C-alpha cells in the first residue's frame, strides 16, 4: 500500500542566495531568562516547529539533546522553518538509520560548496572555499587520496613516538595543586603541536593554527567575533602565509608533510588559491576542533562518572574501548549537512530538490533504538567502535585513526602520572550547532 506523503515544507524553503548578510534578528522563545533549567523545561514541551535548534543558545547550554530525543521519537525527519530568513529552512535527520541512509547516498545528497556545502549555514557564496569534504565525486576522491597517506595506519606508526614524547612533556609541565584551564594547557596544546607537525608549520607559531581554526568556524554574530569581512581578511592572511610554505615545498623534494603532499600530487598541485585555502581550512579544522574537544570531553565525562573512572584506574586495558566511547559521547562535530540533488523520500517525508538536509550525528549517537542506554557513558560499552561521530560513506573522517592514537596515548600517559584530575566547575561550551566543544574547563591536579 502506498503511503500518502504530505508536503510539509514546500512553501517554507527560501531559495539559495536569498539570504543576505547581516542576517535579520533571530526569533527566540519568549522566556523570562535563558538559564539551563528554563531552557530545558521549554524544550520538553514546546511545539517542535517553534524551535530553531541552529540557535547557539541550545549548544552553549547543552540543552539540545532534549529536543533531539523528542524528534527521534515524534518526528525523526523534520523540517524547521522558524528563522528561515537566516538559514533558508532545513531538514533535521535524527535517527541512526536515517543518518546512515543519507551519509551513504552521495548520489542524491550532495556536499558541493556551490550548493552551500557541509554545514547548516551555507558557505558564503561570494567567498567559496572549495575543499574536498565539500566536493562530490569524482574530484572529491582524487583530492582526498592526495592527503590520505599521511593519516594511514602505516604512517601513523612513524608518529607514535613523537606524539608520546610530546604528551609526556605537556603532562609533566602541568601545575600541581593549582586550578588551570585544561582546554588551554592540554587540549589546545597537544592538538596544535600535532597539527604543526602534519603541516610542517613552525612549532613556535602553532597557536596561529588554533586561531585560524576558531576563526573558520566562528559565528560572526556572536559578541566579540570578527565580522564576515574581517573573517575573510584573516583567512586570506592565512593563505598568504601558507603560500610561502607552498612555494618552498613545491621547489624541493617531497618532505612528507601535508603542504608538500598537496604541492606534489598531480590532483592538487595546480589548485587555484581559494581551493588551497579551502583545503587548509578543512585540514586545520578537521585536525584541531575535533580532537581538542574529545580530549576535554573525556576528562569531563570521567569526572561526572566516578564509577567509570574507578573502572579505568583498575584496568588500564580499557583505554582503547574508552576512546571510542569518548568520541561517541562527545560527537565533536554535531552535524554534517547535504543538499538534495533531486526529489526524494526519507523517513516518509518528501524532500525536494535543493533542500538542505542536516544529519545530526549528535542525535544518532544517542539513538536508543540502536544503542543500549546511549545516554550513559560506559567505557566498557560493547562494540564501542560502532558510533557515528566520524560520519559514514565517502566523506567519513580521514583523520579518525590519528585522533584515536592521540587520545589513546594521552590517556595511557595520564594514568601513569595522575591518580585523579578534578574538574572544579562546569566547563564553558562553544556556542555552535556545528563544533560541539568547550571553550574552557577549569581543573586541578592534587599536589
Amino acid at each position: 500500500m502506498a503511503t500518502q506523503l504530505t508536503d510539509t515544507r514546500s512553501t517554507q524553503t527560501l531559495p539559495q542566495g536569498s539570504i543576505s548578510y547581516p542576517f535579520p534578528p533571530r526569533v527566540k522563545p519568549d522566556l523570562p531568562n535563558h538559564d539551563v533549567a528554563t531552557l530545558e523545561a521549554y524544550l520538553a514541551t514546546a511545539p517542535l516547529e517553534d524551535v530553531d535548534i541552529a540557535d547557539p543558545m541550545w549548544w552553549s547550554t547543552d540543552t539540545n539533546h532534549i529536543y533531539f530525543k523528542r524528534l527521534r521519537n515524534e518526528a525523526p525527519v523534520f523540517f524547521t522553518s522558524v528563522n528561515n530568513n537566516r538559514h533558508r529552512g532545513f531538514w533535521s535527520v535524527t535517527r541512526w538509520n536515517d543518518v546512515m541512509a543519507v551519509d551513504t547516498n552521495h548520489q542524491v545528497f550532495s556536499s558541493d560548496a556551490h550548493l552551500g556545502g557541509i554545514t547548516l549555514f551555507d558557505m558564503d557564496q561570494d567567498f567559496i572555499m572549495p575543499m574536498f569534504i565539500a566536493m562530490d565525486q569524482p574530484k572529491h576522491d582524487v583530492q582526498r587520496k592526495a592527503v590520505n597517506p599521511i593519516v594511514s595506519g602505516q604512517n601513523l606508526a612513524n608518529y607514535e613516538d613523537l606524539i608520546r614524547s610530546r604528551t609526556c612533556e605537556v603532562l609533566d609541565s602541568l601545575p600541581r595543586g593549582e586550578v588551570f584551564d585544561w582546554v588551554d594547557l592540554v587540549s589546545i596544546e597537544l592538538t596544535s603541536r600535532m597539527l604543526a607537525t602534519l603541516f610542517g608549520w613552525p612549532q613556535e607559531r602553532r597557536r596561529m593554527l588554533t586561531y585560524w581554526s576558531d576563526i573558520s568556524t566562528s559565528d560572526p554574530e556572536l559578541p566579540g567575533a570578527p565580522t564576515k569581512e574581517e573573517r575573510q581578511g584573516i583567512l586570506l592572511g592565512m593563505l598568504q602565509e601558507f603560500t610561502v610554505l607552498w612555494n618552498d615545498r613545491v621547489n624541493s623534494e617531497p618532505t612528507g608533510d601535508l603542504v608538500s603532499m598537496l604541492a606534489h600530487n598531480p590532483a592538487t598541485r595546480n589548485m587555484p588559491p581559494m581551493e588551497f585555502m579551502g583545503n587548509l581550512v578543512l585540514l586545520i579544522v578537521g585536525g584541531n576542533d575535533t580532537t581538542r574537544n574529545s580530549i576535554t570531553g573525556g576528562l569531563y565525562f570521567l569526572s561526572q562518572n566516578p564509577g567509570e573512572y574507578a573502572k579505568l584506574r583498575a584496568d588500564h586495558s580499557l583505554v582503547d574501548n574508552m576512546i571510542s566511547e569518548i568520541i561517541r559521547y562527545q560527537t565533536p562535530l554535531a552535524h554534517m549537512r547535504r543538499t538534495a540533488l533531486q526529489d526524494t523520500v526519507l523517513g516518509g517525508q518528501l524532500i525536494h530538490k535543493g533542500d538542505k538536509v542536516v544529519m545530526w550525528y549528535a542525535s544518532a549517537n544517542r539513538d536508543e533504538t540502536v544503542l543500549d542506554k546511549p545516554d550513559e557513558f560506559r567505557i566498557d560499552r560493547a562494540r564501542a567502535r560502532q558510533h557515528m561521530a566520524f560520519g559514514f560513506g565517502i566523506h567519513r573522517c580521514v583523520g579518525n585513526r590519528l585522533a584515536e592514537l592521540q587520545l589513546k596515548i594521552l590517556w595511557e600517559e595520564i594514568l601513569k602520572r595522575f591518580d585523579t584530575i578534578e574538574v572544579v566547575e562546569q566547563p564553558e561550551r562553544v556556542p555552535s550547532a556545528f563544533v560541539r566543544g568547550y571553550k574552557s574547563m577549569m581543573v586541578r591536579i592534587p599536589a
Partner: protein
Amino acid sequence: MVKIIYVEHNGARHEVNVPEGENLMEGALQNSVPGIDGDCGGNAACATCHCYIPSEWQAATGERSEQEDAMIELADTAKPSSRLACQIKASAALDGMEVLMPETQH
C-alpha cells in the same frame, strides 16, 4: 557452519566457523579475530573490514556493490582483490576460504 580462515598481515591464521548467512565481518568480530574492526556495523559505509580474497575464491564471493566499490576506492591499501568482509555472506561455497587482511584498517 562454514569454515573461514582469517589471515592477519603478519601471517597469523585464525580458523573459525561462521554460521551460514552471516557476513564475514560479523564472523570475525564474534570470534574475536583481530584485524577486522567493522565500525559501521555492516553497511559498506566505512572500510574497516577491508580484506583481500584470493583469486580462486573470487567467483564464489561475487562482485562489489557500487557503495562498497566507492569505499574501497578510497582505501590506500586497495587492490583488485579487495572486498569489504561485511558484504560477503558465509555459504557452503566458501567453506575453507582464506580471507587476507591488510596491515591496518583505516
